[in-house]
């Protein structure tokens, strides 16, 4: 961090320079942004925003490949469903530390909560892009369609996003020096943690319940009346995998922000042990689902092979990698396992929502995302990475604020 001469012009300017520009002058800061990674990230994010504007200008028909057969595309399947499930690390880690009392994992709770907060914000943006009449969204609280699983999703996502926002407000108040507000927030942290688990359980499972209404459209190897339980368990799996994946990257990329040394490898091995158990149990749960649905005959088909790819390559293999890595204190295996875990849960959500959905349709009319849809999705992810970096470089996320060392939350 370059320490430039502080302008004596005004306290506001000094504050902006210190807080926003990391102590650099505007010119220096802009220059510091000129890296190849930033060109890519910035380009993708700008493209995503531009495409969003275009989508609202010309409508869904001109920008997406959505059809009468396939009303849901990757903005639902990836941005909303995958985004929400990969953000499950927030409540998983918060539960581990604050409710299970495993305080060894305290250093990685805040990054997990930040990932969750940004994940949900981006999921909501993706949802707004997909909705035909998003301005009517707010009326869901006035005219609740309580028979709908989507109502449950919408309400719990809205409520949980508020909880995440309040949890995110904590490091923000530390960064901004808002002691009184921070004090109030600290008092409600425990109830917020409990609410986060309640809301997360409800909407992660409700995202699965959505597809209960479509037994004829979702392939029998994925359709089961227990799909809502599977979605909840896989949310926990996604949370663990995402925390491992994001942690590996952040710990290296933002090493200068870490204030207290902790053995991140040991924590990752601990998470891998939990991951190995849960992935293993989930594998057998899915088998039970197939048996319960009398769908074993489908295993020896083309779709069965694809199902086996998801099960063996992206559920069983990560379980083995986690187990092996934990046994032998080999973090590399754990990290590879986490990448496969993240990809596997994303694959599962995409399978349920767009790939194995409408499996009976002839391939000529099957849904394939348009370039613009992909552009928006990729752009939103890039935006998330940029926001994550911006926040981590300024707020006490990876490290502790000097005035609040040893804080419980």
């Amino acid at each position, binding site marked *: 961090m370059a320490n430039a001469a502080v302008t004596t012009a005004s306290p506001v300017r000094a504050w902006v320079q210190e807080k926003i520009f990391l102590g650099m002058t505007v010119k220096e800061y802009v220059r510091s942004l000129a890296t190849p990674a930033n060109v890519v990230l910035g380009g993708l994010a700008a493209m995503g925003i531009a495409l969003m504007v275009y989508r609202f200008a*010309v*409508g*869904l*028909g*001109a920008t*997406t490949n*959505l059809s*009468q*057969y396939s*009303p*849901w595309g990757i903005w639902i399947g990836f941005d909303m469903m995958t985004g929400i499930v990969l953000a499950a690390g927030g409540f998983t880690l918060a*539960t581990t530390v604050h*409710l299970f*009392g*495993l*305080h*060894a994992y*305290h*250093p990685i709770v805040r990054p997990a909560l930040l990932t969750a907060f940004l994940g949900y914000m981006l999921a909501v943006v993706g949802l707004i892009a997909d*909705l*035909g*009449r*998003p*301005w*009517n969204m707010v*009326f*869901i609280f006035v005219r*609740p*369609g309580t*028979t*709908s*699983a*989507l*109502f*449950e*999703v919408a309400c719990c996502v809205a409520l949980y996003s508020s909880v995440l926002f309040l949890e995110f407000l904590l490091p923000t108040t530390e960064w901004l020096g808002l002691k009184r507000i921070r004090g109030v927030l600290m008092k409600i942290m*425990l109830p917020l943690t*409990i609410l986060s*688990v*309640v809301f997360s*359980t*409800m909407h992660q*499972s*409700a995202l699965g*319940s959505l*597809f*209960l*209404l479509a*037994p*004829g459209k979702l392939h029998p190897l994925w359709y089961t*009346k227990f799909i*809502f339980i599977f979605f909840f368990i896989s949310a926990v799996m996604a949370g663990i995998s995402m925390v491992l994946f994001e942690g590996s990257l952040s710990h290296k990329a933002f090493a200068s922000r870490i204030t*207290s*040394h*902790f*053995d991140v490898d*040991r924590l990752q091995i601990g998470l891998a042990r939990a991951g190995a158990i849960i992935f293993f149990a989930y594998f057998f749960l899915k088998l039970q689902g197939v048996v319960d649905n009398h769908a074993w005959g489908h295993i020896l088909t083309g779709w069965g092979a694809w199902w086996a790819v998801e099960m063996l390559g992206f559920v069983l293999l990560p379980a083995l990698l986690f187990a092996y890595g934990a046994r032998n204190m080999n973090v590399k295996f754990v990290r590879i396992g986490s990448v496969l875990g993240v990809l596997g849960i994303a694959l599962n959500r995409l399978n349920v929502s767009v790939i194995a959905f409408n499996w009976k349709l002839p391939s000529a009319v099957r849904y394939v995302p348009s370039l613009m849809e992909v552009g928006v999705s990729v752009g939103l992810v890039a935006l998330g990475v940029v926001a994550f970096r911006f926040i981590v470089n300024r707020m006490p996320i990876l490290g*502790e604020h000097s005035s609040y*060392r*040893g804080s419980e939350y």
Partner: protein
Amino acid sequence: MKLNRRSFLKIAGATGAAGMLARPAAASASEAGGVPGENERSMLVDTTLCAGCRACEAACSEANHNPAPPEGDAVFDAPREPSPDAFTVVNRGPNAHDGTPRFAKKQCMHCVSPACASACPIKGIEKQPEGPVTYRPERCMGCRYCMIACPFGVPKYSYNELAPRVRKCTFCFERQKEGKLPACGEVCPTGALTFGYRGELLELAKTRIYSNPGKYHPHIYGENEAGGTNWLYITDVPVEKLGLPGGIEKSSYPDLISGALSVPPFVMTLWPPLLMGLYVFANGRHKEHGEHGDDHGNGNAHGKEDRHG
């Protein structure tokens, strides 16, 4: 000729329908004991009588301010689906035993327990007690979950509008409120469409099947499909060949989700005491061992600056 016949049948139909609907408005049938939706307004489609004239398509477009349907028999060469601008289409099926082709009209089935209405999170689609399943675009937020839910693939979406809408047959609910027949039923020249109460139409359909042994397939499409629909079909060729979807569950679709949906109240009730108990248990033990503020000897005793690990 069509005009005269149509106007004659209009009057006859209106009187007939008025006569059938002369009974005092009864409440919707209770599910227990009676036939589901037996007092809901329904339509019986006898495909053995359909001539494929597509007058219903024309009348429907007119009544709903949609563009006029394409003319000519070339439309029958490929199966068609309703579209955002065509709430109903007539498809041609195979020839029957007597060598004449069979046709069937396709539109919203107006289910007794509609999946779309249960799926809508914002009450944009509602089941009216009289029978029709109606949509209100001013309420809709465009999530298109109704399209996912409908097993018949009925709702269409006007993606090309800037404020898109769900588009489907309304059963001419406004006309029914005025005591008129739905537009299609009014113009049908052959009597293939019979409007009435679901219970009575089921009886009528069964009577026709039993009175003409060997003529009809002994199945009323819509009697049990999706738990029962208000549009009923009797036919003498397989329904799937007429463009009507097969593989529909014989029970109501909203029932498939009611189990999962009863979970949230349990979670809201059970999780807080469970989690608080966990918290007290886990953190009580910690206080006993004085881990808060102590250096944990968890393997690496040295170099840990943070209190909590």
